[in-house]
C-alpha cells in the first residue's frame, strides 16, 4: 500500500483579531490507497482546518507550514492555478451541508456535468451520460428520471448522495469528507457511511473522513487519528483504537458517546481551550483524570507500545479496555401516578395554500394517546418529519390541536385564559439550539431572573441569590451572570437555558433535542446533569430526539413515532432488548451499541499505520 496523501508536520495558523493564532500544530498523517482514515475531534480541534488545508480552501490570512504530499506532488509548492487542477480532479470533497453546497437554481445533472467538464471538457452529452452513471452509482433510485430535478426535490440523504456523485465526477484519488453525516437522521447517516465505505473500495480511493462522532466511523474506518486542541493525541488502526484506546482523552471520548442501554456516560470536566490559551504541555492535561505535574510542562512524545500511538506521558496500559460495558438493569418501570394525559391528539398543518388555491391540510400528528407519569422521563424518538417536535409543541400549548391534553386532570382546553396561562407555565421547554433560546442582547443574570420575577417568586429570596443558586444547580459559576449569551460556549449556553426553565419552577420539562447541537463530551455532561436534576427535583421530562441512544440513556419509557403515528410504546428496557416493530428495530440497530463484554478485540500484529512521526 502506498500513501495517497501524506501530511508532514503540517501547521496552520489563522488571523484572529489582531494576531495570528496557531490552529493546528505539527500534524502528521497518511491516507493509503483504498483506505478510510477518520480524523476525529471536537469543535476547535483543528480537524476541519486540516481537511481544508489539503484543498487550500483556508480563510484569508491563513499560514501553512510543513508539507502536503499527494502521491509525489507537494501541494504546498503549487500556485493557485495548480491547485485548481487538483481540486475536483485529484481530490474530491464532500461538505457537511449539501443544501448549502449545491446550487438551488440548477438541476443536479447540470451541476454534476459541470464538475466533470471543468476538468475533462467534452460535450454536454457525454457529461450527461457520466452524470447518469454517477447518480446510479451513489444509489439514487431511478437516476434517469431524477437527472433534471433540483436539489430541493431531494431529501437530505439523497442530496448528500448527489454531493458525493459530484465529488466523484472526475474519479479522484482522494475523497475528503467533512462531517458528511452530521445533521442527517441516524438511519440515513448509516447508509451514507456505508456508501462512502463501498465507493472507497470500488474506486480504490483514499478517504479522509472528518468527524466529531466516533460512533459514526466505528464500523467502517480503517485508521483513526484523534485531534485535541490542534494536536494529535492518538492515531493508529481503527481496530486497535476501539479495542484498546491508550490516550486518556480517547478513553473519555469513547465513554461519552451515548450507547443503547448504557448505565452512565463519562464526564470530561472543563471546556476545550481556546486557540489563544492552549496549555503549554499536554493540551488535555487540565481535564485529564490521570494528570501528573510533568504533564503540564512537557509535550508528550508518542508512545508506540500498543496497537496505536498515543501522545501521552502516562498512556493507559496496552491491554486496557474502555469502561463502557456497564449495562443498566432495566426492569419494567414502577407504577407512577399519571400527571399529563394526552388523548386522541391530532395536529393539522395547512400547507401550500395561496391567494387562489385552497391550503391542503396535512396531518402532522394522528390520534396520539399517551400519558406521562410523575417523575417519569418519556422519550419520543423518530426521524425528521415524524412529528416528534410537533408533539412537544402541542404539549407546550404553542400550537393549536384537536383532542385533549390535561395536566393533573385539568384539561387545558376547558380552562379560561388566566387559568390556562398559569397551568401552561408548569410545563417548560429547553430547545435544541442554545444560542437561539437565549436573547442575545440580555445579560445572563437577567435571562434567568426573568422567570423568577414573572411567576412572582421574587419575594421569596433576593433575586440575585436565587439566580446564583440556579446557576449553581446547573454547574455554573455565578460570575457568568454578567456575560452575554454570545460570550459563552454552546454547552454553557444550554445549561443557562436549563437554569431558565428551572427558574419557572416547572413540573414537566419538554427537552426538544437538547444535546444534538453540542459536542460529544459536552453532550454527555449535559445528559448527566439532566438526569441528576430530575432525581433531586422530582421533575418529569419529555425528551424528544432523533438519537435513539440518547433517548434510551435517559428515558424510562419510549414512544416511537413515524409519520405522525405512534409505532411502538413501551418501557425503555423492553424496547431496547425486544423491539416489536420493524421500524423500531431499524432505529435501535442504527444507534451506537454497547460492546459485548466478551467480544474480542485482538491486538493487531501489523505495525501502526496511518501516521508516522
Amino acid at each position, binding site marked *: 500500500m502506498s500513501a495517497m496523501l501524506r501530511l508532514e508536520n503540517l501547521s496552520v*495558523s489563522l488571523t484572529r483579531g*489582531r494576531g*495570528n493564532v496557531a490552529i493546528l500544530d505539527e500534524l502528521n498523517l497518511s491516507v493509503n490507497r483504498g483506505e478510510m482514515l477518520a480524523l476525529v475531534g471536537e469543535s476547535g480541534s483543528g480537524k476541519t482546518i486540516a481537511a481544508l488545508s489539503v484543498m487550500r480552501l483556508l480563510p484569508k490570512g491563513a*499560514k*501553512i*507550514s510543513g508539507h502536503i504530499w499527494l502521491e509525489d506532488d507537494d501541494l*504546498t*509548492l*503549487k*500556485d493557485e492555478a495548480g491547485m485548481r487542477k487538483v481540486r475536483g480532479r485529484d481530490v474530491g470533497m464532500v461538505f457537511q451541508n449539501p443544501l448549502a453546497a449545491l446550487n438551488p437554481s440548477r438541476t443536479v445533472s447540470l451541476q454534476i456535468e459541470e464538475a466533470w467538464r471543468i476538468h475533462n471538457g467534452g460535450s454536454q452529452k457525454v457529461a450527461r451520460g457520466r452524470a447518469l452513471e454517477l447518480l446510479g452509482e451513489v444509489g439514487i433510485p431511478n437516476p434517469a428520471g431524477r437527472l433534471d430535478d433540483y436539489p430541493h426535490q431531494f431529501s437530505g440523504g439523497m442530496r448528500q448522495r448527489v454531493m458525493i456523485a459530484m465529488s466523484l465526477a472526475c474519479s479522484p484519488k482522494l475523497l475528503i469528507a467533512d462531517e458528511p453525516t452530521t445533521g442527517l437522521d441516524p438511519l440515513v447517516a448509516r447508509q451514507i457511511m456505508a456508501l462512502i465505505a463501498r465507493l472507497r473500495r470500488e474506486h480504490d480511493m483514499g478517504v479522509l473522513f472528518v468527524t466529531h462522532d466516533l460512533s459514526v466511523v466505528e464500523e467502517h474506518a480503517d485508521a483513526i487519528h484523534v485531534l485535541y486542541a490542534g494536536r494529535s493525541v492518538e492515531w493508529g488502526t481503527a481496530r486497535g483504537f476501539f479495542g484498546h484506546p491508550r490516550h486518556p482523552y480517547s478513553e473519555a471520548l469513547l465513554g461519552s458517546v451515548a450507547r443503547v442501554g448504557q448505565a452512565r456516560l463519562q464526564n470530561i470536566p472543563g471546556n476545550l481551550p481556546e486557540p489563544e490559551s492552549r496549555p503549554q504541555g499536554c493540551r488535555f492535561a487540565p481535564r485529564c483524570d490521570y494528570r501528573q505535574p510533568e504533564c503540564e510542562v512537557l509535550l508528550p512524545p508518542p508512545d508506540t507500545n500498543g496497537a496505536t500511538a498515543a501522545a501521552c506521558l502516562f498512556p493507559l496500559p496496552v491491554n486496557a479496555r474502555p469502561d463502557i460495558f456497564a449495562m443498566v438493569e432495566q426492569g419494567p418501570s414502577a407504577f407512577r401516578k399519571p400527571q399529563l394525559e394526552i388523548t386522541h391528539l391530532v395536529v393539522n398543518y395547512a400547507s401550500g395554500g395561496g391567494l387562489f388555491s385552497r391550503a391542503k391540510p396535512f396531518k402532522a400528528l394522528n390520534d396520539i394517546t399517551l400519558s406521562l407519569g410523575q417523575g417519569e422521563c418519556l422519550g419520543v424518538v423518530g426521524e425528521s418529519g415524524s412529528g416528534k417536535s410537533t408533539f412537544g409543541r402541542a404539549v*407546550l400549548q*404553542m400550537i393549536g390541536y384537536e383532542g385533549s391534553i390535561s395536566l393533573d386532570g385539568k384539561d387545558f382546553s376547558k380552562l379560561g385564559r388566566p387559568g390556562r*396561562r*398559569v397551568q*401552561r*407555565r408548569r*410545563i*417548560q*421547554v429547553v*430547545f435544541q*439550539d442554545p444560542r*437561539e*433560546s*437565549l*436573547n*442575545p*442582547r*440580555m445579560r445572563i443574570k437577567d435571562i434567568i431572573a*426573568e*422567570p423568577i420575577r*414573572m*411567576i412572582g417568586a421574587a419575594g421569596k429570596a433576593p433575586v440575585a441569590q436565587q439566580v446564583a443558586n440556579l446557576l449553581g444547580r446547573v454547574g455554573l459559576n455565578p460570575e457568568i451572570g454578567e456575560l452575554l449569551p*454570545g460570550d459563552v460556549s454552546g454547552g454553557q449556553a444550554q445549561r443557562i*437555558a436549563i437554569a*431558565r*426553565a428551572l427558574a*419557572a419552577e416547572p413540573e414537566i420539562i419538554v427537552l426538544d433535542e437538547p444535546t444534538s447541537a453540542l459536542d460529544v463530551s459536552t453532550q454527555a455532561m449535559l445528559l448527566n446533569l439532566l438526569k441528576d436534576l430530575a432525581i433531586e427535583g422530582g421533575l418529569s421530562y419529555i425528551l424528544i430526539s432523533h438519537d435513539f441512544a440518547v433517548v434510551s440513556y435517559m428515558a424510562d419509557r419510549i414512544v416511537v413515532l413515524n409519520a405522525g403515528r405512534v409505532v411502538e410504546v413501551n418501557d425503555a428496557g423492553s424496547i431496547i432488548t425486544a423491539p416489536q416493530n420493524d421500524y423500531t428495530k431499524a432505529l435501535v440497530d442504527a444507534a451506537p451499541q454497547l460492546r459485548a463484554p466478551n467480544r474480542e478485540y485482538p491486538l493487531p500484529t501489523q505495525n501502526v499505520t496511518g501516521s508516522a512521526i
Partner: protein
Amino acid sequence: MSDQLMTEAIAQPGMPSARMGRLFDWASDRSTLIIGLTLSALVLFLGFVAPFIYPVDPFAIHPNHALEGPSRMFPLGTDELGRDELALLLSGGLATLIVSLPSAVLAFVVGVAYGLASGLGPVWLDRLLMRLLDAVLALPSLIILLFFASLVSLTNTSLILLLGFIAWPSLARLVRNETMAQKGRDFVLATEQLGASRFYIARVHLLRVMAPILVVNGTFMVGDAIFALSALSFLGLGVQPPQVSWGSLLETGLDIIALDPWWMILPPGIVVFAALLAASLTGQGLLLRWGNRR
C-alpha cells in the same frame, strides 16, 4: 511560492508604536461613527448654541449694505434686504432643527408602534394595517406634503405633524417584518411559555433585539426630516416668513442666482449637506458597530 506560504510570524512591534497602533486601530474601526458624531455635534452646535455666541439680530435690515459679500462686519455677507447672512443661517438652523427633530421622533414612535402591532396582532389586523400602509406608501410623499401644506396653516406644530406623517411608513414596515422574523425564535417562545403577554415580549425582548436596526433607522429619519423640511421650505411651504430655515435661505439665494450671490447659496447648502451626512454616517457607524450582534 513556498516562501510566501511559509512566512514567519512578523516580529512584535515595540511598545509605544504598538500602543499608537492600537489607538489607530480603535479609531479606524469606528471612523465612520466618530466622523458622524462629530458632524452631528457641529450641526447641533450651529442650531442651538451658536445663536447665543453670535447674538446679532437676523432680521435687522441694513439697506446700505444690501447684497454685500463677506466682510469683517458681515462674515457671511448680506442678503438682498441687507440682513446679516450668518445670523440668518444660525436662526434658520434653530428653526429647521426645532421642527425636523420632533417630527423624526414622532415618525419613529408611530412607526415602531404600528409595526409591532401589525407583527404581533392577529392576522386580520396585520392584513388591514399593511394594506393601509401600502395605500400611504403608494402616494408620493411630496404630493401629500404639498396637499396638506396648502390646506392647513403652517405653524411649527402642523409642520411637525405633517413631516412625521410622511416618514413613519417605511419604518413601520421594517419593524413589522423584523417582528415577524423574531417572534418565532426560541427565546420568544420560551418567554411565552412563562405566561408573558405580547406587550411584555415586545417591550423586553423584541425591542432589545431590534435595537441596532431601530437606532440606525432613527438617525436616518432625522436626516430625512431635515431634507424634507428643507425641500418644503425651498418650495415656500415650510417654515413661514419672517422666520427662515436652511431651505428657504437656499431658495432666496437661488432666486437671484443671476447676481451670483454665492455667499447666500453655498453656506445653507453646505449645512444641509452636513446635517444629512452627519445623520447618515452616525447611522452607518452604529450599524457597523452593533449591527452584527443579533
